[in-house]
């Protein structure tokens, strides 16, 4: 017994002392440390989860990191990677709101310490008080959803949990969680498959809708809430995908039919308009911050998939009257795809009414699979647009959404390895200048992302934690009655 105790004590001591060494005689290296993720010069909000990072070169014995705040505070960690405690980190960011955190990185390799040039993270003056993110996790497969699930992540810690996982609704493919400005009490989830339907939660009530009618050719797809919570703009799409034979592209997703409509969430009625249900392709409807305008994308009819490179979407808008539930008289084209020779998709107006972020790709309606897809920003006051060069990369950027105060935005990108989409967050100032985005922090991020075989789809901010009775939802999906929507 005594022997066992001594053995356990010695082992614990060994583990604790595996990397607690004093940095001595460090050789200065005149370059920034190669870290993963690249957090150099990123801007972070107060209270974000600890920005743990690894040294990119795996052959090191130990890493010593000192994080000093420009306005005070210091953290010192040592180990296989830079691993900060949640509370200490939060305190450091709070102390340095509007300032910088300077990191001094030393690594032990082949018995010698090396000290790299310091780098900074900037702590924004803009708070990010939302609870966290919601997103879908799905393997980047082709036609099979696999181990799919919709998750939520507390961005102030590392806690992640499933909102609904396929194990609760076996055999069903689920689309993303669409919330009304990050509200956990107003959201919908579309499910496809044999038990497909729309889970709609509004004002504490949850119901399953069947959104296909005799007058509409498919179930509702891409959706967006009216700020009042009384309406939901939706597209109905006949979505198909084909696969490339060559080396650079993988998948082309296209609609052989798509229209735009609005659902009156109070009465479960569809509000249709011939102008939004033409032979052309209308998709991606979103309401403006005040709910008075409906933005959407539209492409001229072409034979798909044969003419898939001809499908280029313009950005349009039409008025919407909340009181009557009627569309405006005039449709305006904000960005003409033919003039721009590009396709505009995924418009997302900021909730403060200042900006409209959208995707630009060469063609098509699904930029997620277009390497050239970038984020652009329109100033809604002037109508001027520009590419968000400070955010874009050489690979896909797409699926963006705003924080509830509209000073932060989240998007997914394949800049890591070209296949697995990851979540990035960036800050935007009064002038529309975005900061260098940072990868969603994780504990031991290199290990985490290396071992993560899912892509992150449709990230969005959520103000509070989404509470859902999964067993009830599972029952509703698998056995429950659907409420049929009807055309107004």
């Amino acid at each position: 017994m005594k022997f066992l105790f001594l053995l356990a004590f010695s082992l614990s001591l060994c583990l604790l002392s595996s990397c607690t060494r004093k940095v001595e005689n460090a050789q200065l290296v005149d370059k920034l440390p190669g870290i993963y993720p690249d957090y150099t010069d990123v801007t972070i909000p107060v209270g974000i989860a600890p920005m743990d990072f690894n040294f990119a070169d795996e052959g090191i014995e130990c890493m010593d990191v000192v994080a000093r705040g420009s306005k005070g505070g210091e953290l010192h960690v040592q180990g296989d990677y830079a691993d900060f405690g949640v509370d200490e980190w939060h305190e450091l960011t709070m102390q340095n709101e509007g300032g910088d955190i300077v990191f001094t990185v030393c690594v032990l390799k082949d018995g010698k310490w090396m000290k790299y040039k310091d780098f900074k993270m900037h702590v924004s003056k803009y708070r990010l008080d939302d609870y966290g993110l919601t997103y879908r996790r799905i393997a980047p497969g082709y036609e099979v959803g696999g181990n799919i699930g919709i998750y939520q992540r507390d961005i102030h810690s590392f806690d992640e949990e499933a909102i609904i996982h396929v194990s609760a609704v076996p055999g069903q493919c689920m689309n993303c969680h669409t919330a009304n400005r990050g509200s956990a009490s107003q959201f919908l989830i579309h499910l496809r498959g044999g038990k497909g339907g729309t889970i709609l939660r509004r004002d504490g009530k949850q119901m399953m809708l069947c959104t296909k009618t005799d007058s509409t050719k498919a179930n509702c797809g891409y959706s967006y809430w009216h700020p009042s919570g009384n309406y939901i703009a939706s597209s109905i799409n006949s979505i198909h995908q084909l696969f490339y034979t060559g080396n650079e592209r993988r998948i082309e997703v296209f609609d052989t039919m798509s229209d735009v409509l609005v659902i009156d969430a109070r009465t479960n009625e569809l509000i249709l308009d011939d102008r939004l249900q033409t032979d052309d392709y209308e998709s991606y409807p979103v309401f403006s911050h005040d709910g008075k305008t409906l933005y959407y994308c539209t492409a001229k009819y072409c034979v798909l998939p044969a003419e898939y490179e001809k499908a280029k979407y313009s950005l349009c808008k039409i008025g919407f009257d909340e009181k009557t539930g009627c569309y405006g008289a005039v449709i305006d084209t904000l960005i003409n795809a033919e003039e721009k020779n590009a396709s505009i998709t995924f418009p997302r107006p900021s909730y403060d009414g200042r900006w409209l972020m959208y995707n630009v790709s060469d063609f098509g309606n699904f930029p997620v699979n277009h390497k050239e897809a970038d984020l652009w920003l329109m100033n809604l006051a002037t109508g001027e647009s520009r590419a968000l060069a400070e955010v874009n990369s050489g690979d896909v950027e797409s699926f963006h959404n705003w924080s509830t105060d509209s000073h932060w935005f989240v998007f997914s990108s394949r800049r890591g390895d070209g296949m697995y989409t990851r979540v990035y967050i960036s800050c935007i100032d009064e002038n529309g200048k975005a900061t260098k985005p940072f990868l969603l922090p994780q504990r031991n991020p290199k290990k985490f992302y290396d071992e993560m075989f899912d892509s992150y789809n449709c990230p969005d901010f959520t103000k509070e934690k989404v509470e859902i009775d999964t067993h009830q939802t599972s029952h509703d999906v698998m056995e429950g009655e659907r409420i049929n929507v009807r055309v107004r």
Partner: protein
Amino acid sequence: MPNKLKELLKNRAVDISISFVLGIGVFFFWLEGFPQAMSYQEQYQLFLWTGDYFAESMRLPGGLARYVGEFLTQFYYVEWLGALVLAFVFVAFHAVASLCLRQALKGYAASVALIPVVLLLMMMGDECVLLSYPVALIVAMAVALILGKANRLVDLAVVPLLFWLVGPAVWLYVALRGAVLGVKKYGWLALPALYLFLIQELSYHFLLQQWSLAEALLGMNYMRFPEYDRWQIVYVPAAIAALVWVSKAIVVKETKMVMSLVLCCAICVGGWFAISNAYDKGKYELIKQDYLIRNERWNDIVANAERYTVPVNFWSESVNLALAMNHDLANRQFSFFQSGVDALLMPMMRDLTSNLPTMEAFFRLGLVNESMRYAFDLQESIPNGKKSGRLTKRIVECCIINGKYDVARKHINLLKKSLFYSEWAKDAESYLGNEAWINAHPQWGKLRQLRYKDDFLFYYGEKDKILGNLFINNTDNKMALEYFMGELLLRGDIQMFQQGLGWAQQYGGYASMPAGYQDAMRCIQAGGEVFDNRYSDYAKRMKHMMDPRMNIEEESVH
């Protein structure tokens, strides 16, 4: 030899002999009878030697059984080792079942314990049953034996713990404890059962939010498919419990060896018939074809097809692939069953097995992206969310051929954490970024030459054109030529087939027109009605013989 051991051997000679014979029998049953079943099970999991993998397993009830089951299943990769593992599992299962019965049945226990063994072997004929199931039963019985007549209060802790370790197999533990302690001493048997039910209910409500009640009650790790008929898992533990309870009413004073052997033989004979019927011949022949493809035993696939036919797409595709690999598709395609227009390449089916031959054919044809797509989707179709060593390997190969080294490295890192794929992964890693090595690789280098370099959309309905263009892209691609011509014949596109004969003559490398093409030409020239002509038989079956171009509609047997 110590006296105690001598005495044990003397007293338990029959038991030990039965266990020994059982072990040998089970070993050869799997090794010689069903090596394909082991290959099938092994390819739908990837056991990783990491703490995270263990932690992930232990997250749900039955986690330990799942972990041990998957640990053992990885050894199926080496056939004899897999058979040995299974032999040990069955011997252990028999031994603990026998010990449970021993108090009442004395020397007959080992013979009677063969009944649950037979039932278990029958159940494992269902390819959805995982090894975690027998592991869970063994642990449940073993714990009941170890605790013996220990105070019933220990069950307050043991039952929930065992539930988390082995899952609902803990019901067997409760039943056995009830039998050992006696109904009166154990309280009502209903009380511990109620306690266990309460634990399962609480787990369901508070810990298993993403799982169904059926899974919480009947286990989430015993079967591969969540929505599968779970009640069948009840049969074996119910049989054991019933035997133990019934045997309590029988008083055996002494054991007659002859009687014991007769009993043993009777159970074995009856069991043999029962087991024979439990393994669906057609299903296991299909699994065998896939196993042979995995091991590139092309001649064996053809030889198998000469003996037996399972009239479905999977079969046709397997045989056609083997023929093509032997450069014999042009001669013999229609000598074997052709399921229809999908007999060479099947469209995507959302399950974990159907597209395996197509994935393999795509890869060897040089349709690398298509092969990777099918590999991805096959892997994502594994219903319990497991990765597959075989499919991950294929994804790595496709990524290396396409020069996507970051993605290849990610998958290689995964394989490196396994036991049997690790060496391969390390070797593959040495190729990353080394263009000269990859180009010199006997398979990857060749496929780089054969694959499409231009991006255009693969449309399944036009796979004949895709195969034709693939051949034009590189006229050394004789497999693409044979698939192209075979595809035309399957579709009955006679005009294109006749045009393609020129290519076959020029590039096919045949000394004379292949027998299959001669048959087809005779059939075409005779307007379809030709006696003793395989292609004619096929066309008749497809019911479109009178069409001058024999334009056969899609009519496939999936």
